[in-house]
């Protein structure tokens, strides 16, 4: 058993445990914390695959920025325990057979393709220089389009989250005068 496989299994166990814990917890803050654990463990998996820069961005952007936004919203809205409601019949009708089919498919895939070519740790140069050259040379147009997307997202979130004006302030000021 090589050290790569041991590390893969360790990080994978954290991922699986975090994902299951996300489903099991009823309070959203616990789900958010387990999602952060999943993302940190995924960064370890990326390191094993030789994608150093992706791992760093995963920790900074996902586990840092996005999850802080989630935790901030949970705190802001004072979200409490999840209320249990009766499960929908459609979910039971399609979910249980879906889970069975999916697990059979995954098991079949593992058994059939267990001897595929291996991925060596650090097999590919995922350093920031190579990624930057790809981003600014081969993927320049999508990169620029994503900047427009981010601009639209910023404006949209500001408009959506801003408080609608209830009473015009000038009216109240005139009343006081």
């Amino acid at each position: 058993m090589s050290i790569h496989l041991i590390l893969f299994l360790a990080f994978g166990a954290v991922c699986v445990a975090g994902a299951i814990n996300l489903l099991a917890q009823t309070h959203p803050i616990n789900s958010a914390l387990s999602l952060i654990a999943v993302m940190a463990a995924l960064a370890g998996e990326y390191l094993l695959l030789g994608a150093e820069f992706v791992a760093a961005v995963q920790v900074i952007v996902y586990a840092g920025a996005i999850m802080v936004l989630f935790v901030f919203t949970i705190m802001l809205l004072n979200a409490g325990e999840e209320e249990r409601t009766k499960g929908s019949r459609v979910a039971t009708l399609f979910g249980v057979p879906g889970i069975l089919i999916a697990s059979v498919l995954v098991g079949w895939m593992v058994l059939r393709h267990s001897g595929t070519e291996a991925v060596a740790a650090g097999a590919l140069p995922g350093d920031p220089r190579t990624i930057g050259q790809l981003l600014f040379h081969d993927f320049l147009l999508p990169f620029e389009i994503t900047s427009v997307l981010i601009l639209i997202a910023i404006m949209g979130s500001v408009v959506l989250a801003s408080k609608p004006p209830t009473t015009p302030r000038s009216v109240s000021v005139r009343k006081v005068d």
Partner: protein
Amino acid sequence: MVPISYYLVLSGFLFACGVAGFLIKRNIITIFMSIELMLNGVNLSFVAFAAHWHVIAGEAKGLVPLSGQVFVFFVMVVAAAEAAVGLAIIIAVYRNRETLNVDQLNLLKL
């Protein structure tokens, strides 16, 4: 050396957990986090396939190496934009309806 199928199974499991959370959970913020979990599962398979094809094909003509890793960045950008807009929508919904339970957000139901 870890076979790529292991990474794909882990990726599929994370995606399945995301789908299950999306269907099971009743809190709108937790549903949103399940979507992030699905995106993370897809990202893992992107990176695994980038490594796989780099090993198999090498510098094949017409195939940009490491493009899988670049796609991960685009997925992250879309996820960040989605999180910002979605959480703003959640705040607006909470301001109007005073609830985060999706079962009570049934204004469009007949």
